[in-house]
């Protein structure tokens, strides 16, 4: 049973990641390869808040969201002036820089040794949230919250502007909307919620090291979004469930884990190729990526 709960918690974390990433990729047409960097920011900032500042849970979440969004502006300002492929390359560069800093700034992040023994976040300052059931509840509530917020955002006038942006940026400008502002806001919002995923991951696993937030992870998050589909909320949720459950299914089929790990990569790759060819909007998405 604990195994199933564990899978659900991981799914919840990935739902937060993919639903937030979808706002960038599927709504504003900004393909970012730096999502793992923000995921990492969330995790390390969460550790900072829990271990050094000793904040309770709710303030920790706001702390993480605020500072992840702030850090995302470092990349947002210079790179949002770039278009299309150049933007992707800029986020790729940022992802690599962040990983290198996390890996090598040993006096702060302990680098490759990682940070063990992350304490349980304390609800209202006293009740510690630890163990699998409380985390199941916590992650489900947060994932539900994120889905709710993004559903509202996508169906608000703000979401309409983003749909306009992915459709025709020049037209949005000519109708008197400040395109750069909307892109920066989208970037900051997406990053803030990805920070939450990092925080849950760090406090659930109680150990983090930079390899969880490398380029592979960034590509993995993006692949999950693209496989599930972009443009609506259903798509990224399906994507998150798909990428988390698939390797577990492969394990049940009876492949030894060493083969299953490689097979997993092959299946993701194949799924992406097949989807891009036959169903560019992903399994449950509505927007065809151009």
């Amino acid at each position: 049973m604990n195994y199933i709960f564990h899978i659900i918690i991981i799914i919840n974390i990935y739902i937060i990641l993919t639903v937030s990433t979808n706002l960038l990729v599927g709504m504003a047409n900004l393909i970012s390869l730096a999502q793992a960097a923000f995921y990492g920011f969330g995790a390390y900032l969460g550790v900072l808040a829990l271990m050094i500042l000793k904040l309770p849970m709710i303030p920790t979440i706001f702390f993480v969201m605020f500072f992840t969004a702030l850090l995302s502006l470092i990349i947002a300002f210079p790179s949002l002036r770039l278009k299309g492929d150049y933007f992707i390359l800029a986020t790729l560069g940022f992802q690599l820089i962040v990983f290198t800093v996390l890996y090598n700034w040993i006096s702060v992040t302990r680098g490759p040794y990682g940070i063990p023994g992350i304490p349980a976040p304390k609800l209202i300052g006293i009740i510690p949230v630890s163990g699998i059931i409380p985390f199941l509840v916590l992650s489900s509530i947060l994932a539900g919250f994120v889905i709710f917020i993004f559903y509202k955002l996508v169906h608000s006038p703000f979401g309409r502007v983003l749909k306009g942006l992915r459709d025709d940026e020049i037209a949005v400008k000519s109708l008197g909307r400040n395109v750069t502002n909307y892109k920066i806001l989208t970037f900051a919002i997406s990053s803030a919620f990805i920070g939450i995923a990092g925080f849950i991951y760090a406090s659930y696993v109680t150990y983090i090291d930079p390899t969880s937030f490398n380029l592979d992870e960034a590509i993995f998050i993006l692949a999950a979004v693209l496989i599930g589909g972009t443009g609506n909320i259903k798509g990224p949720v399906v994507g998150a469930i798909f990428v988390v459950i698939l390797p577990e299914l492969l394990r049940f089929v009876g492949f030894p884990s060493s083969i299953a790990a490689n097979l997993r990569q092959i299946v993701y790759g194949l799924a992406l190729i097949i989807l891009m060819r036959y169903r560019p909007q992903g399994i449950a998405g509505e927007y065809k990526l151009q």
Partner: protein
Amino acid sequence: MNEDILQINSVKKSFVRNIIDVRGKEENERFFIIDDLDLQIPREKITALIGGNGAGKTTLFNIISGFMSPDSGDIIYQAENKQMSIIGLLPYKITRLGIGRMFQDDHIFHDMSVLDNMLLADADDFGEFPFISIIYNRKNKIIEQERIEKANSIFKELFGEDNPFWEKRDEPAKSLSYGQQRLLGLARLFMGNYDLVLLDEPTAGVNPQIINQILIIIRSMVEEKDVTVFLIEHNMKVVLDLADFCSFMSHGKITAFGTPDDVIGNDEVRRTYLGV
């Protein structure tokens, strides 16, 4: 208040083009697409801009609406009680000042619904700041409802009680015919509060019946909404029919300005542009 809504003073815009001569020698040549252009657009009138392909008409529109910046020169915009230079402002700011634009290739949102195309064009952007519409849920709903009513009344006013646009409001705009997409692009301009509207070839590529509809809409803009219209047009019948003034552009300059009859009767215009 000055009677010209827009004064374009000695605007210059150049591109560098790369020329390879017969001996294979490369040279960069500075080429003035707009060369010391002066033009005044009279308020609440329809002014047409005619000229050959590559004369710089669309470039001039891009400069006025802020998508390009000129090398030198100034453009003074005079709205109700403000007079200002609009050079160097970003396109969205120029739109906010009351200068609307319809592009040559429509630029409507093809994947969005017909209604969303209208709502996104609203002058009031309440709720478009993230979370505002979540926090002020109720106010947002009221404003959205008002926007929808506004779009409905614009459709009714322009296209009659039973118009295809309102019937197809939830279908993507690409499901409309080409002519209808053009009409939607025009209807969208009624959502904003514009004093000056730039139309880039509004009648190009559509059938005569829709051309008539477009002419009626443009006239109603000027007569009922007190909008000034500045349009690029290649159809001389439309120019004669619609425009109060006509300007002829050639080699980056305005070489003739006056009533459409005068300009089209001008020897130089007849020889170099109309070819008669």
